[in-house]
Structures are given as C-alpha cells and as structure tokens.
C-alpha cells in the first residue's frame, strides 16, 4: 500500500504574493508530499471544490493581503457547508496576533507566519496530517 499525503495549496482572493506559496510547494514535493498548487486569485468556492475533487489531506492557504480575516474562515465554512469536516485547513502569511484566536475559533488547524522554517512546517504536517485511511 502506498499512501501519500496530498496537499492542496492555494492563494485565495486577489493577492499575488506567491513567493512563499511556491517555495512551500517545492518544499512539500521534496518532503514526499503530493502537492496541487492552484496559483493566485482563487475564490473560496474554487478552493473548496478542488479540495473535494482531489480528496486532499490538507488545504493550505497563503494570503498576505490582509484579507485572511474574511477568506480563511470562508473556506472553512464552505467546506463545512459541503459536509466536509475531515480536511484540515492551515493558513499562513501576514497574520497579526490579534487575528490568531479568531482564525483558530473559525476552524483553522494551524497558522504559520514569517520566520517559520520549512522544516518546522513539514514536521507539523508529518505529525498532524495522517494520510487518509
């Protein structure tokens, strides 16, 4: 049996800061994960549909524009609305401390901000995201 961790990496909203997302996509490949990167300018609907069709183990959102306060909870909510509660959503970017708790309350499983090492992110995934049973 050859289980693999599959990750959807997406940039919701109008943000175009994709340096971090692209670095992460490569890093995930090198960590042995299968990565579906959907690029910039995704709507929450597109992300949710992609996550479902790809049956991923995790959705990773990267937004540096400040619109995370709306977009991240929106993705989690739309997943819920579609009956999906077993795909964890993880976010990163410029997230001020004041927004952390509200985002966790909204259902995000982890949040990584500038300075987070690639190794620490991979390690978090390896310990917290089991490939689907």
């Amino acid at each position, binding site marked *: 049996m050859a289980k693999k961790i599959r990750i959807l990496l997406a940039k919701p*909203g109008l943000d175009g800061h*994709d340096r971090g997302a692209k670095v992460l996509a490569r890093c995930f490949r090198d960590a042995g994960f299968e990565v579906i990167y959907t690029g910039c300018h995704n709507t929450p609907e597109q992300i949710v549909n992609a996550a479902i069709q790809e049956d991923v183990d995790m959705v990773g959102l990267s937004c540096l524009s400040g619109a995370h306060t709306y977009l991240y909870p929106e993705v989690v909510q739309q997943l819920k609305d579609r009956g999906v509660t077993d795909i964890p959503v993880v976010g990163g970017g410029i997230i001020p401390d004041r927004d952390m708790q509200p985002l966790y309350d909204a259902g995000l499983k982890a949040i990584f901000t500038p300075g987070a090492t690639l190794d620490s992110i991979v390690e978090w995934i390896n310990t917290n995201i089991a490939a689907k049973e």
Partner: protein
Amino acid sequence: MLFTQELLDQSSLLRKKWEDEVKRVVSKNPDQKADWSTVSDLGIKRIYGPEDIGGMDFEKDIAYPGQFPFLRGCQATGYRGKYWTFRMFSGMGTAVTTNERWHYLLNNGQTGLSTAFDFPTLMGYDTDSPKAKGECGKCGVAIDTIEDFFDLTKGIPLGKVSTSMTINPPATILWAMYCATADIQGIPLTQLSGTIQNDMLKEFIAQKTLMCPPEPSVKLISDTIEFGTKYVPKWNTVSISGYHIREAGATAVQELAFTLRDGMEYVEDVIRRKGLPVDSFAPRLSFFFNSHIDFFEEIAKMRAARRIWSRGMRERYGSTDERSWWMRFHTQTAGCSLTAQQPYNNVVRTATEALAAVLGGTASLHTNSLDEVLCLPSDHAVQIALRTQQIIAEETGVCNTIDPLAGSYFVEALTNEMEEQAWDYIHKIDELGGMVAAIEKGFPQLEISDAAYKFQRQIDAAEKIMIGVNKYNVENEEVDIPLVEIDETVEQEQLQRLAAVKRNRDSKRVKECLEDIKKACEKGENVMPYCIEAVKARASVQEICDVYREVYGEYRDPGIY
C-alpha cells in the same frame, strides 16, 4: 589600461607576499567559514587589486558623471544640485484617509508622492465585485471612480508635486483620472509630472497583478508611451521595475538583467508598433530597483545598470540623444530583508540599504518602515523611515561628492562582473525570442523561483543569516508596537460611495464611452483619449477593465515555478 605596467608588476610582487602571509595565518587561524558570498550567492574574493580592473578603459568604461557610459551618474552635479526625491509609497483605506497621510508626509519634508492602491483597484475590480470582498482598502487606497480620485488629490498641487502611481493593468485608467482631474482644475497636461508603473512584463514575471495576455498588455503600455510623448511630456509613462522581480526571490544579477531586458522589450515594441523614433520616447522611460541588504552588491548593481542601459540604447537601438541613454531610477529598500522578529532591527537594515541606494546614485527613494512584515506602516514608523533618508542626505556627508566608490578595485570589479553576467542573461533572452517569448516559456519565472527556493533553504540552514530569525533569536518575544488595522467599515463606506456615484451619473453617457473604448481596442487605436472621456463620465475602473477583458481575453496565473 587603467594602470601602468610598472604598477601592475609592483602590485603582483606585493600581492604574492600578502598571499603567503594569508596562507600562514589561515593555517593557524582558519577563516570563520569557507564560503564568502553576497546575499545573491555571488562569490567574493578576499581582496581585490589593480589586476582585477586593469583591463578597464577609463574613457569607455568609467569617465565622469553626465558622460557616457554614465557609470558615475546621469547628472553632472550629483546630489549637490538636488537630493534624490524622498518618495514614500503610501496608500490605505479610503481616498480621504490616504490624502491625510499624504499631507502628513509632505509636512514632514517628503518631496514626492507615491500611491499604493488596494487589491481590487490593482486588479481592475470595483469594490462591489464579489471578487473584491474582504480586500477593500487593506493594502492601499480604494479607487473606484474619479470621485475617489478627487478626494485623493485634495489640496495637492498637481502641477507642482510629482506623483507616482503603482498601478499596472489598469494604468491607462488611473492615469486618465490624473489627467482628467488636472484638466478639470485647469492645469495643462504639459505641466504634470509623475510616474505610472505600467510595467506589465514584470507582472507576469513577479508581481501577478494580471488581467489580459502579454501581447495586448504591451499594446496598452505602448498607447500610454505614445500619449505621454505627445501630450504629457514630463510624465514617466513606465517605470521598468526590478524591485518586484527581486522581491519575488531573484538574485541581484537576475534583477538587473530581467529589468533591463524588459526595458529593451518596450523600446522594441514602441518602435515596431507605433513607428516612433527611439529618441522621441526613450528619455521618458524610468526604472525602479531594489536595494537589498548586501551593501556593495547593490551599489555595483546600480552602477552597472546605468552602464548597460546607455550601451544598449546606443548600440542596440542606434539612439543618438544623450537623454535616452540616461537610466534614471527610483529605489526601494528590500521588504523581504526585514523581519517580524525584533522589528526595531529593521531600522538598521533599512538605513544600510538606503545608504547603498544613495551611493548607487538613485534619483528617488522609498525606505521601508520597521513594521513592514507586520502591517501597513504606522504614522510613527513611516516617520522614522523618512527621517532615515533625511539623515543620510543631510547629516552623513555622503552627498558631498559624486560616486565616491568609483575606482575602488572591489566595487569596479564587482560592477564589471555583474554587468557581464547580466549581458549573458540578456543574450539568452534574445535567443529565446525576446522577453515576451521568454515569459511564455517560463524562463525568468523558473530562474527566480529556483533562486527563491535556494535562498529559503539557506536561511533555514543558517547558511545566510537573518538576525532574529536564525541567529540571536529571542524566545517568546513580545512584539509591542502599534499595528495599523484597516477594518471592515472601510469596505462598507466605500460601497456606499460607489453606489452613490453610480446612482448620480449619466449612465447613457457611460455606456457610450465604454463602447468607444471597445471600438478603439478592436481597431487598435490609442485608448487614452477615450479613457479620459470615460472617467470624466464617472465610468469605474472595473467597467473599463471589463472592456479590456472582453476584447483581449483574460489572463490567469499560470503558476510557473
């Protein structure tokens, strides 16, 4: 030959002695590390001497400021005549809020304006588009119609202050708003000075505010260049930007090469498409570079940039007007060199980077604020950043003399090396069929993304140092600085403003104007005059962009990495 044979012989003798001494010392006290390289991974030697630059030709390669090849600057008088323009990039929330910030900066001694737009504006959407939800005012000022523009420029003497606008796909529209506003105030277009960024090639490569495919995007840029050349002669119609390329992860050489090749692409396009002689428009092309943390590499890069451009203009395009050979550029310190950790350290980084930009001969400068990694700059943080420039200009004495590092063995050698490597890239892109073709093949994107990934790994492995991130970290640091917050009320307010404008305008007239723009697009006419009419009629940014999208098609992020 810069040096006599006698001197070179002497040098080589002394050098040998020095090398022996180094060997002796190193065998007992090894160097701290094996690899000594720039932040871009360019290897640097322990020492440079006459032999490293002996092959240079003083007249052809160095000369004086205001003389070809402009290595030492375009202006004969350097900063004695005028400091660089202190130009802080700013924009937040509504036009009214941003206008307040502008006045604050001008009152603090800023000498030029620079506009940051919010994401919906940057991408050609109105605040009431579903795609804009959650983004209004967050990263810059929200502009939907010319009414917002009136608020933005309230109390600003448009005929006197030069204003730069960081806007790309909708550049025609925002510039049209600027021109229309001036026109309504009775200020002749010939008096306006400023810059629209309007550089789509680097959008595909690095910044990703995308709208239409490359080909029509370049066409719209050529429209503005043509319009500016004819009617707004003091305006810089394109700011060919390396800043974004660098921030996306490029090395200094990549920034240099891709930016200059972008510039050449525009030159070639205007000549081909508009049939304008090169010297009729090239003097108004301006550039925009990054000033990163590696001090000498940045200085060398800027000096090399001037020399490459003048050589390229003269040799590749047969330009004969000196003003076309001048590479004038704005600089911004490197956002990506700053840290969220121990944010006050950012003041030091920015000061160092700003100093490099000044020694590199920038014509205009933005200095990042210490809260760069956390939020849009607060009043206090932006004031420190502005003061940094003023201190460099008026206290440090670095402006006393022009290009003080010229003749340094190291700086000249590094300048030469970077120029050489840049030309290699430029020729490679020529072979690929030019920059548009290279972008379609993903060439610059892949080069940059390789560099970005490598750098991130180097940071993770502490092979390159970022204080506070991978060295001298503070555990459980409490960052206690005020963070700017753009809350959701801004969006509500802006939605109401837009709704009011749409209610009160003559919608039949708007329709006609949009129809005119569509026809101009289809016929390949210059869209600028039609845009000016349309914005006067209160057509919105998105309404005009929708016409572009309809005629030219929409371009989506191909996600090449």
